[in-house]
């Protein structure tokens, strides 16, 4: 199977984020970046499929220069090659605009499967994979934990709410969005890191893909969230804070 994995570079989970002066996005200077977690699970599933059924794993990402190390990380884990859609204006494109870029690049490869994480940790839209499927006219399934190749296509285990699951069969080519936890994530080996340096990363500019970038939804401003409750923060040393908390729980909240 020829599998494309669409991945995204996102701010590292513990990174301190600041709103930039435009109040439309965060200040990216000095930020640490990482591979989006559910995309890492999508990559893992693709690599396991290749190990079972043979084929090729191609990572696909859109972003500026800084996504380079994230691409190398995916290659070091075992992806065969990469496509980097070079663009500096991701933030001004809406979900449809970004999906159009990914779909246009993926189409040139005619893959059997396109995998992506179910949602990004920064925007959290949870839509890209589903829109890519629609744009390419392919069937899709979301929140997938397991993928099994069948005679005619694939059978997947889909997560439903509150501990329920469902099997879904679909023909290929298809698009799947992968939920975290279906597999154990691998680390890149030293050998993998060495090999990654010589693997092919094809660059294509957003302009070359010639897709419509006019947004129909605009992120106007960002802000700090409003508190839903007044939180009593308990200061002091760990011992003092712990003692204060027990007092509060016993005599104020009366839950102990």
């Amino acid at each position: 199977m020829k599998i494309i994995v669409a991945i995204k570079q996102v701010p590292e989970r513990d990174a301190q984020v600041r709103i930039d002066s435009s109040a439309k996005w965060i200040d990216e200077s000095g930020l640490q970046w990482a591979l989006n977690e559910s995309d890492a699970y999508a990559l893992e599933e693709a690599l396991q499929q290749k190990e079972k059924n043979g084929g090729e794993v191609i990572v696909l990402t859109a972003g500026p220069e800084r996504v380079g190390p994230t691409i190398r990380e995916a290659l070091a884990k075992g992806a065969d090659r990469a496509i980097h859609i070079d663009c500096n204006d991701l933030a001004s494109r809406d979900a449809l605009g970004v999906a159009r870029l990914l779909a246009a690049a993926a189409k040139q490869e005619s893959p059997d499967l396109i995998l992506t994480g179910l949602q990004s940790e920064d925007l959290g839209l949870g839509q890209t994979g589903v829109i890519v499927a629609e744009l390419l006219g392919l069937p899709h399934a979301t929140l997938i934990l397991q993928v099994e190749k069948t005679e005619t296509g694939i059978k997947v285990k889909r997560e439903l709410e509150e501990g329920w699951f469902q099997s879904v069969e679909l023909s290929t080519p298809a698009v799947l969005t992968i939920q975290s936890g279906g597999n154990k994530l691998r680390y890149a080996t030293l050998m993998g890191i060495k090999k990654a340096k010589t693997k092919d990363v094809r660059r294509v500019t957003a302009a070359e893909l010639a897709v419509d970038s006019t947004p129909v939804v605009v992120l106007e401003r960002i802000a700090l969230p409003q508190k839903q409750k007044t939180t009593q923060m308990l200061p002091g040393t760990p011992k003092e804070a712990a003692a204060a908390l027990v007092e509060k729980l016993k005599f104020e909240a009366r839950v102990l």
Partner: protein
Amino acid sequence: MSGIFVVLQERDGRVSRASWEAIAAGQLLGSQLNQPVTAVVLGAATEALATEAAAKAIAQVVRVDHPLLAQYTADGFITALAQLIQSQSPAAMVLPHTYQVRDYAPALAARLGQVLISDVVAIGDGPTFTRQLLQGRLTGAYRPTGSGPCFISVQAGAFRADAVQAGAAEVTTFTPTIDTAQIRTQPGEPFRGAAQTVDLGSAQLIVAVGRGIKDADNLPLVQELATALGAEIAASRPICDNGWLPMERQVGSSGQTVSPKLYLAVGISGAIQHLVGMKGSQCIVAINKDPDAPIFEVADYGIAGDLFEVIPALTEAVKAAKQ
């Protein structure tokens, strides 16, 4: 274009709570745009759901009925709803942000050249739609600028289901044209995972652990606190994904929903997928090294500190208080 169309979802044969919340959001949007609210039910036998929805103060209920909608498929729902939208040109589509909606609504919007504004928590003037960014650390205000209907899905618990008043709505039926060949996926019957042996839903005290614990070897620290309190232990998704605790101990949108007297969150940042499973708790305590973590937004008491120092101290304090 006119009317706010709210797509309802069924749960155990009834209109789901999330759907009533979506109607409440639709009514809020409708009052701002001066538009009537229509509820939409889809399926192969929608009469009961339509009757239930029609007893509310909305303008109309549309039954989208077709044998091929008996079981949910993205292809079936998208085909049917796209036809409904093209025939009735609503100004806005409002949906509950459920797993099912996440599966089809982005593609439905894209088919009509639109973009779904997903997981909306508030509706402001304009209208603008607020949603969370960066796992709840920030919020963003979105504005639709396209010419077609706007699509929004609303987060569970963000709008009040009980805001929907009783009334009497007219029921109409819309019959879409769907061909078997258009349905490209074969869904199986839903099944449960491993047998549920822990009922966190009935626990009075819960100590929940998250990514901050760093390693499975550190879990006994939290276990000791739970034992001292006489509490059940629970976890956020990453802990179960790593196999450090069984999946049945997971609290959140993909796990259990709990509302104990005391919910003590240790090293949990408070992504929305977790918060929806526990924010109904009577008293919430958060212990996290990051004072800006979203978990503190729902907490009654907070300690910003290193859990590896705070938890042992707390275990001792609990033991001392119980003597």
